């Protein structure tokens, strides 16, 4: 193992955090094609960095921004798809195909002056994104509510009673599944429902926001709805004053299942007694 290689190994964290100079970045990328273990580590750390990105509070953009963007793309051509991997590639085609190209182009530009408008070199830059080859696709945002760095204050925004760590871990597992999917639907009567699911894990979670609170003798009930099997009860939930709640659905999700929510008597029902207020298909 050369010193150079050793150096690239030590830079994976900084690489994933975009904390390297263009020169160092190119050095790491040049090594990616040669080392399976390095590539693996870079991929995982880049995926971890994405989770840090999701820990930032979302900010709603002004309508004018969307209007401006939509106006521009209307007349903006899209890049042609990438060619199939070059013959020089080995089994890990994507990385090895791009790595030499990336390092070559990077080395020909001044290493210390990244472009002000990141846009012109979009093509090359975008290719470099593929190094991350994410194994996870985490849905959702996350917020920076009191992420105290160095202080050590833990703000439990949900309250221990509402959700166990186990449920949070299950939700995270769905988010982290390679076949993670999510869909959002409006709820009749107000609010939104977000369904997250993974076919691999046969598991799903529902997140609701802006849902009306129910009288004490009623609960919301979740259903897996199979085309042939009909609705299967998947657990009940209530909402807090904000109208928010989430839960991982009980039972296994089958391929093609839809997920619905009904209002049921407290304790839940074996079969729905009311029409669903929302239904989301996973197919």
């Amino acid at each position: 193992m050369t010193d150079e290689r050793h150096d690239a190994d030590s830079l994976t964290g900084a690489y994933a955090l975009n904390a390297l100079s263009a020169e160092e970045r190119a050095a790491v990328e040049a090594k990616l094609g040669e080392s399976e273990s390095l590539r693996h580590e870079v991929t995982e750390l880049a995926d971890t960095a994405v989770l840090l990105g999701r820990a930032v509070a979302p900010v709603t953009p002004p309508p004018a921004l969307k209007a401006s963007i939509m106006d521009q793309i209307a007349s903006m051509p899209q890049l042609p798809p990438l060619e199939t991997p070059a013959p020089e590639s080995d089994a890990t085609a994507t990385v090895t195909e791009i790595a030499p190209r990336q390092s070559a182009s990077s080395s020909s530009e001044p290493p210390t002056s990244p472009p002000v408008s990141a846009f012109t070199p979009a093509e090359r830059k975008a290719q470099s994104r593929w190094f991350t080859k994410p194994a996870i696709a985490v849905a959702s945002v996350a917020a920076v509510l009191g992420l105290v760095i160095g202080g050590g204050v833990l703000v439990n925004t949900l309250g221990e009673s509402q959700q166990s760590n186990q449920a949070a871990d299950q939700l995270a597992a769905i988010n982290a599944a390679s076949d993670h999917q999510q869909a959002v639907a409006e709820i009749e009567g107000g609010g939104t429902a977000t369904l997250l699911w993974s076919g691999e894990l046969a598991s799903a979670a529902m997140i609701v926001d802006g849902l009306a609170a129910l009288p004490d003798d009623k609960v919301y009930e979740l259903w897996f709805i199979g085309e042939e099997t009909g609705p299967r009860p998947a657990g009940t939930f209530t909402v807090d004053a904000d109208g928010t709640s989430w839960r991982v659905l009980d039972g296994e999700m089958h391929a093609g299942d839809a997920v619905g929510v009904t209002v049921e008597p407290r304790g839940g029902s074996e079969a729905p007694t009311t029409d669903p207020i929302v239904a989301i298909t996973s197919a």
Partner: protein
Amino acid sequence: MLKLVTRETDDQQEFAPVTQDQLLARVANGDQAAFAALYDQIAPRVLGLVRRLLRDHAQSEEVTQEIFLEIWQTATRYDSTKGGASTWIMTMAHRRAVDRVRASQASRDRDTKIGIRDYDAEYDNVSETVQTRVEHERVEKAMLRLTDLQRQAVSLAYYGGYSHSEVATLLSVPIGTVKTRLRDGMIRLRDELGVAS
């Protein structure tokens, strides 16, 4: 029971839920409506992250615009087998925000303690605040498992957009130490957050 299923089917048109991956695939075919829908879903996260690094709202909007134009242009090269659409987009967003931080010294009147101090919670009402809280909490807990130096280094780099040499200066430690802490810290976070490929 049948009614439930039927009803659900009828309502599909109305709800028409589609995933971000599906939207991005449509964008790759030049579908502007899909692009608009994708924008609606993920723009608040992108703007939130970019503004976190740049602090300046006008600049953050500019960079967000660049990111979405890049998404439009390069969606043709997105391959869903390599990871989710939102991961692709968030990774691109961070990179672009860092590019701007580095390129624009004017934006560097940012508080040098930016990554160390507490953050303002800027909560515009978006639809996934519950999940936001859950995920935030996990990251927060994972962060607490790091050593102080690891945590500070990772935060300065990711949330402050500082290079490792700048982080070394800010924390008054040798650059080799920063490299190690960034790697060790990220590995620890990876393990705490259960990221595996």
